[in-house]
C-alpha cells in the first residue's frame, strides 16, 4: 500500500503538489536529487509530510538522511526536483523569500548548535531579537523563560553558557531556541543520539508533549527504535537513493525488503518491543 502511495506521488503534477501543501500537507518533496560531485546520494525522492504528524526518517549510514533534511531546509543545494512548503517551491525562491519561509520552521541540530558566546536564555532570545521588530526586553525575558520551562530546563540553567550544560540539556535548549518563534514544523536531527536511555525516553516524551500542545509537525531523523515506536506516527525508510517505504510501524514489519526486515526484526528491535506488536 505504501509503495503504491509513493508511486502515486511520483506521478503527481507540480501544481497538485503545490495545492496539497496549501491543505493537509506541510511539505511535499518531488523528484529530489542531491549529490556532491560523485554519484547522487539521493535521486528521484518523493515524500509528503502531513500537517500535525510526527514522521521518523530512518536508513543505514550514508543513505542521505541528513542530506535530505539539510536540502529541505535549504542548507544543501539540490541538483533536481522540488520542495513545496506552504504552497511555495522553496528551492527556487529568492534569498529573502526563503528567510520568510524559514521562520515557519525550527531546526534542532545534532549537538544543539547553541551559540557558545551567549547564555542559554540569550540563545532562545536570538530569533525574537533578530526577527521581531521592537520586541520589549521584558517580554523577551518572559517568553524565553516560558520556553525554557516548556522544554523542561530548570530555571538555573538559563544564565549558564552552553559549555556548562550536559548533552541532553544542550538539546533541550536547542529545542527551546527552535520553537522560539512558534514554528509550524520542527526538524530534529538524531534528537536522542548520545543520550542515556532514561534521558532519551524523557526526550521522546518532550517531543510528544510539544507536538500535542503546540500542534507541531515534527520531522525527525533517528536511529532510535524506541523513538520510532513511541512518538512517530509514520516512518520513512531511505534506501537505494530514495524513500523505499513509508508507513506505520506495522507496515515496516510486513515489508520484505531485506534492510527493512533486518532493521525492524533484528535483536535490538525485539529488545525495543517492536516485534511483539
Amino acid at each position, binding site marked *: 500500500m505504501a509503495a503504491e502511495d509513493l508511486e502515486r506521488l511520483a506521478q503527481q503534477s507540480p501544481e497538485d503538489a503545490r495545492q496539497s501543501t496549501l491543505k493537509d500537507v506541510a511539505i511535499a518533496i518531488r523528484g529530489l536529487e542531491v549529490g556532491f560531485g560523485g554519484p547522487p546520494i539521493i535521486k528521484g525522492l518523493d515524500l509528503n509530510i502531513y500537517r500535525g504528524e510526527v514522521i521518523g526518517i530512518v536508513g543505514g549510514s550514508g543513505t542521505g538522511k541528513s542530506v535530505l533534511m539539510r536540502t529541505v531546509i535549504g542548507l544543501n543545494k539540490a541538483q533536481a526536483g522540488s520542495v513545496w512548503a506552504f504552497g511555495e517551491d522553496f528551492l527556487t525562491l529568492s534569498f529573502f523569500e526563503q528567510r520568510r519561509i524559514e521562520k515557519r520552521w525550527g531546526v534542532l541540530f545534532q549537538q544543539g548548535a547553541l551559540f557558545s558566546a551567549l547564555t542559554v536564555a540569550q540563545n532562545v532570545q536570538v530569533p525574537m531579537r533578530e526577527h*521581531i521588530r521592537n520586541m*520589549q526586553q521584558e517580554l523577551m525575558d518572559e517568553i524565553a523563560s516560558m520556553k525554557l*520551562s516548556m522544554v523542561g530546563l530548570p*530555571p538555573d540553567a538559563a544564565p549558564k553558557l552552553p559549555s556548562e550544560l550536559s548533552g541532553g540539556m544542550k538539546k533541550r535548549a536547542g529545542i527551546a531556541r527552535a520553537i522560539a518563534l512558534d514554528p509550524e514544523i520542527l526538524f530534529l536531527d538524531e534528537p536522542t543520539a548520545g543520550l542515556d536511555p532514561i534521558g532519551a525516553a524523557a526526550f521522546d516524551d518532550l517531543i510528544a508533549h510539544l507536538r500535542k500542545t*503546540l500542534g507541531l509537525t515534527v520531522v525527525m531523523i533517528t536511529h532510535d527504535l524506541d523513538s520510532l515506536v513511541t512518538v512517530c506516527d509514520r516512518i520513512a525508510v531511505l534506501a537505494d537513493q530514495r524513500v523505499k517505504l513509508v508507513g506505520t510501524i506495522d507496515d515496516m514489519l510486513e515489508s520484505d525488503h531485506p534492510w527493512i526486515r533486518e532493521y525492524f526484526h533484528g535483536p535490538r528491535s525485539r529488545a525495543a518491543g517492536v516485534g511483539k506488536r
Partner: protein
Amino acid sequence: MGQRAAIGNEPWIMQNRTDGGATLQAGGAWIVTNSPPLFESLKTLSFRKDEPITVELDRLERLDTAGAWLLYRTVRDLRAAGHDVEYKGGTEAQMSLIDQATTNDALCLIEEREPNVVVRMLEDVGAVVMRVGGQATASLAFVGLLMETLWRYTKYPRRFRLTATVKQMELVGLNAMPIVGLISFLIGVVIAYQGAYQLRLFGAEIFTVNLVVTAVLREFGILLSAIIIAGRSGSAFTAEIGSMKMNEEIDAMDTLAISPMDTLVVPRFIALVIMMPLLTFYADIMGLLGGALIGWLSLGIEPMQFLERTHDVILGWDLGVGLIKAPIFGALIALIGCYEGLACKGSAESVGHHTTKSVVESIFMIIVLDAFFAIFFTTIGV
C-alpha cells in the same frame, strides 16, 4: 466603548462594560510577530476596583504560545489585583496553550549578574597571576621534558623518529622557501631603494651596499624568516597537535605506550632547529639579490661591483650574528607551538584560541630576544 480595534489579521483587544462587571475581548492574530504592540496596549488597561472580568476569546483568529503568554500574564496580574477573572469562548487548543503558559510561568535569570567593579577587577588580577604562574611552571616543565627526551636518545638512538623529522623539515623548510624568498627579496629592494634616496643627498650612493648588507645579514634575514615561520609553522604545530588532542589521539598514543614527545614534539623541534639557519641563509641571499637589483637599476652599480663591495663590507661577523640567532628562534617557535598545541582542551574553540596565542607569543619572544641579542653583540663588539 471600544478602546482599540483593528481589521484583518491585526490583533486587537476591546474592553466593554456589562451589568455585573467588565469584559475583555481579544481578537485577530495573537502571535509572536504581533506581540510587541499587544504588550504595550495591554499595559494601558484599567478596570474598576474588584469588578469581575470575563476574557472573551471567541473572536481570536490565531493564537500561539507568545499570545497565550500575553493573555495569561494579563489575567494573572488582574487576579493578583483582586479581580475575579474567567476565560470564555476559547477552543480546546487555545485553552491548552493558555494552560502551557500557566504551568510554565517561571521567570529566570537571563545572564549572571555582574559582581561589582572592584571585586571583578581583583578577581581578574588574581586570575591573571594564577594563570601566569601556572603557565610559567608548565612551560618550564615542558622544556625539561623535551631536554630529558633528547638526552634519552643518546642511550636509545633508535627511538628517534628520523622519517617524521625529515617530513617536518620538508614542511617547515622546503615548503616555506617561496614565501620566505619573496619577502626577503622585496625587503632587500625596499631597503636599497629607501637607503639610496637618502644617501644620494650626500652623494654617497655606494654606501647603499653597506646599508643593505648590514641590515639584511644582521637583522632582516633572520627576523623576517622567524616571523614568517612563526606564522606559518608555529601556528600549524599548534593547530595540528591541538586537533589531535581534541580527537583524543594524544590519549590514544599514551595508552599504546607511544610518547607524543617522540612522535610529535621532537621531530618538529629538531626540524625547525635545523631548517631555521638554512632558511635564514637563503633569506640573506635573496635580500642581497633584491638590494643588488635596485643598485643596478636605479644607482647603476654593476652586479659584479656590488658583489665586490659586499665582499669588502662584510666584516667577519655580519653573517654569523644573523645565523647564530636562527636555531634559537627556531627552537623557540617549535617549543611554543607544540606547548600550546598540547595545552588545548575542551572545545574546538580552544584550538583557535591557542593557535592565536602561539603565534602572538612566538613573534613577541622573537622580537624581545632579538633586541637582547642586538645589545649583547654591540657590547661584545661584533
